[in-house]
């Protein structure tokens, strides 16, 4: 392997690979500061206008009706962000509770159908989201349930429960059951052992699973697209709609803020993980 020319070629290829992954993100960030409103590909000059416009602080357009349209879309975007955060918070809580309970049950109890549950928990993750999305859409319409923020939360929980399950299960596998046996031998009830001995040990896995669920929920497009009504829309669906209607320069600013937020969250996740192994 220590063939210097081969290694140099491999290094060049790999660096090009990472450039391929990151260049598009930098393109968006760069153009979010371009003041050219007609063709954002042609550099005019540096501006913060798209950001201040997003926050409702200023507006470049002098035309009053145009300005009204901008303000309206800003309001819609903030509403979408609020919906996304609400959905993600409820979804994270519900799927973390259900996923953790399932992981504990499958790791610590022997019962009929255990193998079935182990395989079954993989299915929601593997099912293409479009199939799950239309299945839920038909289901909600058939039982006469209105599409709302509630149906979005239910839709997200169906597959995020599996993600939490996988992460917590991995953590379970590394635990020493002797501690729980000791607790039981010393007279603690099953429920007390669960609460006082098992859950504290599982905490890093549960937090990791919850963080993953939150991030995926914030980013989900397809399921939300099918099960959201006309009223509530999440940020990814809102951006999808904006792209379909035609690209406006504000999208670059929104996208840049989303990229920044995701870098912060990813770094936070890494930091949590490194602390956990200490």
């Amino acid at each position, binding site marked *: 392997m220590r063939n210097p020319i081969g290694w140099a070629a491999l290094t060049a290829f790999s660096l090009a690979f990472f450039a391929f992954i990151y260049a598009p993100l930098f393109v968006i960030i760069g153009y979010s500061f371009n003041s050219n409103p007609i063709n954002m590909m042609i550099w005019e000059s540096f501006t913060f206008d798209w950001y201040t416009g997003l926050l409702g602080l200023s507006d470049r357009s002098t035309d009053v009706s145009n300005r009204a349209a901008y303000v309206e879309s800003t309001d819609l975007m903030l509403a979408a962000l609020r919906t996304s955060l609400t959905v993600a918070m409820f979804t994270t809580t519900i799927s973390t509770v259900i996923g953790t309970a399932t992981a504990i049950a499958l790791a*610590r109890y022997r019962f009929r159908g255990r193998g079935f549950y182990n395989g079954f*928990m993989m299915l929601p993750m593997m099912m293409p989201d479009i199939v799950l999305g239309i*299945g839920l859409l038909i289901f909600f319409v058939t039982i006469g349930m209105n599409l709302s923020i509630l149906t979005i939360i239910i839709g997200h929980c169906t597959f995020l429960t599996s993600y939490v399950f996988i992460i917590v299960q991995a953590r379970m596998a590394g635990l020493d059951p002797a501690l729980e046996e000791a607790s039981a031998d010393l007279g603690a009830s099953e429920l007390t052992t669960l609460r006082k001995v098992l859950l504290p040990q599982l905490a890093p896995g549960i937090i990791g699973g919850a963080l993953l669920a939150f991030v995926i929920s914030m980013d989900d497009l397809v399921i939300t697209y099918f099960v959201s009504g006309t009223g509530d829309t999440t940020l990814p669906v809102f951006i999808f709609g904006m792209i379909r209607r035609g690209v406006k320069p504000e999208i670059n600013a929104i996208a840049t803020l989303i990229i920044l937020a995701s870098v912060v969250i990813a770094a936070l996740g890494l930091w949590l993980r490194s602390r956990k192994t200490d």
Partner: protein
Amino acid sequence: MAMRRQSVVLGMLLTPVTLFLGVFFLLPLCIIAVFSFLSPGLYGGVEWSFYHWNYGRIFGWADGIIEIYEPIYLQILFRSLSFAALTVGLTLILCYPVAFWVSRLSERWRLVFMFLITLPFFSSLIVRLYAWLLILKPSGLLNTVLLSIGAISEPLEILYTPTAVVLGMVYVMVPFMFLPLYSAVDNLDRAQIEASLDLGANRLQTFLKVVLPQTLPGIMGGAVIVFIPSVGNFVVPDVLGGAKGLMIGNLVEQQFLSSRNWPFGSALSMIIMAVVLTVLLISASRARKAGGHA
């Protein structure tokens, strides 16, 4: 391993998942299956009578009344399968050398590049696709650069072609291929590789006989994880593909949100589900066989 038997606590732990996934996951899938055999109503609803032409329309058998058959649906199905296979192949070719490279770096740099490869997981899918829209547009970055350096005299038309769709899918799926490959490459038994080289095998032989078989589980895992979301993808072709880049996911979306033929859309979804389950069963049986030999 401390394994307890059935108890009240076990019931408490398992009831939520059973109820929730039973009602909101299994039941909807069953409803898709039922709907795929119902007749489409006149104004977008369904009529509760058995109707097999939702499938006939795709695979080409006669209805009795409607004898015209459009092979377009079968063509789009094959296109989806081949785009997904192409995505698997391209992500594999891109990720395999890079996984090797990262595994040979010093601890510090390995952490940095592993962070860089997982970062896209945390950033928005739609934002990343939108970036390619900006790059590939006729007046986009790629054409602007190529025109200004004189490499081309007319703008390339990449956006709204199959090339753009496959490019977009490869871009989105790369991290999913990388992680299973990396763990396989990182677990390679280096002593075996050295032994093979010392015993006179050349690099190609060593790769084919030692490295490839050892990393095959990672390759298979990555292939499954990339193939499944690619087949039913509708966002990538929607944003980057034109009529020629249409995939089966787009057909499903149209049946539900614009044509309002839910039974036909359900039949198309059943086909996506059948493809996915087939892939999962094949990979599970292969994994079991491989495990039995080891």
